[in-house]
């Protein structure tokens, strides 16, 4: 079975005046389909860089990153965008909803770039919004929603294209602990239904819910350990 994500010795190098700075140095790991992985590390450890590489927002200097078996390294920006659209569902810390669009229209954005007809977009958006428990808020503006509801919209948007990988960057970072817990429960449910999730976090509580915890330090993979919610316990 092809893993959802394969990283093969990827490095990200930023040339500086004196010497090259390695944001990531030969990081390798696979994420099998259906796994729920936490990516941890102190700030400056290369978490964000790694997340951008996994999400095809950036390209590695060396090594290969394969999403659903496809190498994005040789693709031009147009093809990369199409692949990102199809295989990656982003959930950001600060939600990143488009304020001028309604909840439903926000969820439709990735479907639009995939080329779905308006009727399909609409049906699909309502379907995923229903799934995250916002079926009754579809015509609201993001500004009319609470933080937890906004993050649910963002999750619905990430699910809309049925991606190979859900990529969540501190999804509870801007939420109070109770709302954060609700969001994490939603991720647990999605995981139980087969979603592959990579979650960047610095909170051990959050990481504990995952099957596997990857720790980064100074651009290197420091440890790769089983989480509390390992398959055996699932």
């Amino acid at each position: 079975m092809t893993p959802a994500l394969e990283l093969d010795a990827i490095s990200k190098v930023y040339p500086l005046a004196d010497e090259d700075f390695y944001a990531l140095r030969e990081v390798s790991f696979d994420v099998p389909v259906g796994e729920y992985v936490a990516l941890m590390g102190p700030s400056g450890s290369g978490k964000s860089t790694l997340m951008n590489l996994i999400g095809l927002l950036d390209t590695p200097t060396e090594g290969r990153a394969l999403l659903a078996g496809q190498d994005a390294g040789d693709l031009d920006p147009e093809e990369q965008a199409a692949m990102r659209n199809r295989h990656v569902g982003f959930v950001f810390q600060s939600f990143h909803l488009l304020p001028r669009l309604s909840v439903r229209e926000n969820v439709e954005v990735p479907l639009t770039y995939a080329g779905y007809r308006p009727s399909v977009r609409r049906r699909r958006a309502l379907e995923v919004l229903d799934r995250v428990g916002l079926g009754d808020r579809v015509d609201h503006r993001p500004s009319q929603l609470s933080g937890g509801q906004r993050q649910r919209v963002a999750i619905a948007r990430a699910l809309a294209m049925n991606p190979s990988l859900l990529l969540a960057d501190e999804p509870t970072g801007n939420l109070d602990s109770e709302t954060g817990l609700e969001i994490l429960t939603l991720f647990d449910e999605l995981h139980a239904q087969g979603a592959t999730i990579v979650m960047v976090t610095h909170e051990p509580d959050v990481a504990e819910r995952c099957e596997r915890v990857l720790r980064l330090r100074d651009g290197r993979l420091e440890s790769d350990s089983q989480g509390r919610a390992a398959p055996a316990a699932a």
Partner: protein
Amino acid sequence: MNRAATLDATAGDPAGADPAASVADWFALEEPSGTTDTRAIVGIAWRSIRGNASRSLLTALGVIIGVAAVVALTAVGAGVTQNVTANLERLGTNLLTIGATVTRSSSGIVRSESSGITVGDAELLRSLQGLDGRILGVAPSVTSNLQVRAGGLNTTAQVLGTWPDYAPIRDLEVGAGTWWTDVDVESRARVAVVGHEIALELFPGLEPLGQSLTVGSHSFTVVGVLPDKGAGFGSPNRQIIVPLSTYLQRLARSQVAGGTSAQSVNQIFVRATEPDHLSALQSEVTRLLADDRGEFDLEALSFQVQNQADTLASLTAVSRTLTLFLGAIAGISLLVGGIGIMNIMLVSVTERTREIGIRKALGARPADIRLQFLVEAVVLAAGGGLLGLVVGAAGAHFVSPMLGVTSALTVAPMTVAFGVALFVGVVFGLYPAQRAARLDPVASLRHE
């Protein structure tokens, strides 16, 4: 369902969850077309324009003004040209006009005083008429604006002295009464044919025929009344036409000063029987008069013979130059309008950097982002162009009555102006759109 099937193949179920409840199954999706829905992108651009309605209007203002200026100016210009052309055509197209040479000096346009077009010249041409079947008629004319009285009423009229041939030359049939004849010219009879308006003003509610009117200290009997020929340049409605001999003897101002200029006239009209004869006739008349005066340098004659076609041609040339000139001005204002659009679009790209980053993270291709901003610029330009057409047409409609002309909206300049506006939108929209398309997604997402 294809999509669901492929995903199932890879999705599997390593975590031991019930396959029936897998995400792939749960969210069955058909295969996407893979190319972005262009209409949706146009919709995105349109919403952005509407969301910033007042700014959009201000952005498009340059184009609105540019297009409106083209439409209004060309419409009024075409109206003036049509008006003047119509009046010239009313003068008759088979017509030669012999007058003093017009010279331009630093103080403006000056008629050569020494030309001395005289009754003698007209008689010379009339003798030619007898030999030449190509000439329909010869009529000298001399005019001045004078006070005219009748009963207790008085008004100002253009009093014109001429020969009976003036009637067929200018197609002036009387509506009532008769034209005076050569006999009246011989006898210097004090008879007059009056224009429609003058008849109404001096003899309200009366039959004008047989009435008398007074010009200066001389009274004339009305023998004919002209029908209404419409207002405007060259209209006979405010004319009083009298025999040339009578005019020269009794009304000519130069007579007071004395001297030989008593036989002077302003112009001589010669009408050809056929338009085809006109240019041959023009050169023969010129040669005849030049010989008679002993002038041999054809480049420096004291008189000139013009035909209506020449006048129309020079008028057309002038109006074409004017149109080009207006077009150039309008082009410059459209250029300025385009720069305005580019300016605001660049600001907009900066302001919406985060939106661009989000869209890219969600799978917008650079081409999608480029199209979104390009459409926005083009819609602004096209909308401005359409508004400009309306404003320009309305402007022409309201301004032309003040200039005393009927504006004529013509399709060509409107099409060109709108086309140029569209072109400007594309050209000046490309650079900001390209910048938006090339933004780095990572940096854009962090942009506040």
